[in-house]
């Protein structure tokens, strides 16, 4: 059994992961911090754009509304590598936004991930808000609330359901490699994040290290989710 390379890899990986974490390897710390910075920033921007957008669609009626919803839902499945390619072409020196010199920087990675997550946040918040709108609509209208005011009121009132959506967006961002590797270039010490580091070690054949990094990534995401869940549950209990 111990000769089975699959078992070996897994146990080796766990040992690697533990050693990396215990050793406090500065390179690892830098990669983790960059991953968090890129994905959290992307989630923040995506929420600033996607939450009001999704909520606005939920409370509005306009021609073509159903088509917009279908397209929005479909965009949740945007392949990261396609987004990466498009953003690369936009930011390349030969492209329309080339003069900003953003290619191969963390900013480019944030841009690409934001584009990836906005549809998720918008489509899911649209669904959540629309479901609740049935309950709130008449009362808010009776009080004289404007459509814009309704969007803001609903987003805050539904904040506990929206936390799950934000976590979904973050999960998607932290897990993807296709977009960040193209627009970031996986440059050592500059644009290397957890996922691209794992991809690199895999292609070098160092599978235990790749798996170890994977375990660290999963642990971080798990910890974040647990924290968010606890905060949400305690607050939800209080506010009903």
């Amino acid at each position, binding site marked *: 059994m111990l000769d089975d390379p699959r078992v070996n890899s897994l146990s080796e990986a766990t040992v690697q992961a533990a050693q990396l974490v215990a050793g406090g390897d500065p390179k690892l710390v830098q990669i983790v911090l960059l991953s968090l910075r890129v994905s959290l920033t992307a989630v923040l921007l995506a929420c600033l754009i996607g939450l009001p957008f999704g909520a606005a669609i939920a409370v509005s009626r306009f021609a073509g509304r159903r088509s917009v919803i279908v397209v929005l839902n479909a965009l949740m499945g945007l392949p990261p590598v396609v987004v990466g390619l498009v953003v690369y072409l936009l930011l390349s020196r030969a492209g329309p936004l080339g003069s900003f010199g953003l290619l191969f920087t963390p900013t480019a990675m944030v841009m690409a991930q934001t584009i990836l997550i906005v549809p998720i946040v918008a489509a899911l918040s649209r669904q959540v808000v629309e479901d609740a709108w049935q*309950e*709130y609509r*008449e*009362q*808010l*209208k*009776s*009080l*004289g*609330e*404007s459509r814009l*005011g309704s969007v803001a*009121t609903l987003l*805050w*009132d539904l*904040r*506990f359901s929206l936390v799950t959506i934000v976590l979904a967006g973050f999960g998607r961002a932290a897990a993807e490699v296709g977009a960040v590797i193209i627009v970031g270039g996986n440059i050592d010490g500059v644009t290397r994040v957890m996922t691209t580091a794992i991809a690199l070690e895999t292609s070098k054949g160092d599978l235990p290290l790749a798996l170890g990094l994977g375990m660290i990534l999963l642990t971080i995401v798990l910890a974040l989710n647990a924290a968010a869940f606890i905060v949400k549950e305690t607050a939800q209990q*209080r*506010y*009903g």
Partner: protein
Amino acid sequence: MDMRTPPSLLPLELARVVFAVGGRRIIDGISLRLDAGPRTIIVGPNGAGKSVLLRLCHGLLLPTSGTIRWTSPEPPGGPRRQAMVFQRPVLLRRTAVANVAYALAITGVPRAQRMPRALDALRRVGLEHLAKHPARVLSGGEQQRLALARAWALSPEVLFLDEPTASLDPGATHEIENAIGAMHASGTKIVMVTHNLGQARRLGDEILFMHQGHLAERASADRFFREPASREAAQFLEGELPW
């Protein structure tokens, strides 16, 4: 200082109002006039269109044809002078007092005045001790009283109520009825839909009896319960009252 009271919303005139959905006429040509003063209670069998009529008056629905006209309507975007309480209270995930303050904010009350006025409204319905409680963890009766306080804080000219005590126990029902009575005493026109005929007798000054989308009978509460003029009303009362 010129304290001009704004011109009154009432009377409200409905002329040949029809409300149809998918070809079905839920309101089938109603003309009526609501004046300030008497507490108006709308009764009738299920499907008569009572709730729809209420919503048409309040502006939550638009008529398919016919007109609904207030004497001097509220300017759009201006402060609300009418309010509505629904069968199930819709409260925000905030404290009780914040819910009332929210309504005041929408209607343009300056920030400094919101809290004092909100607390005052809670006091009127006996909820001031629960001001800082999250609204959604209150009991059904307390939530409905809060909804009433929220409406009351706006000092509305007209208060529409759609079966406000249908989901409440007798004790809570009694408290709501007291609050409604107090609001009326302070000058608010009451227009209420109810299934509870005892409640209609207790609270009503005049009765609007609806049947299949028509206004079948209109009379003072006294006369309606003693001697209903229409056949449908008589049948309705007979079926409902536990003789």
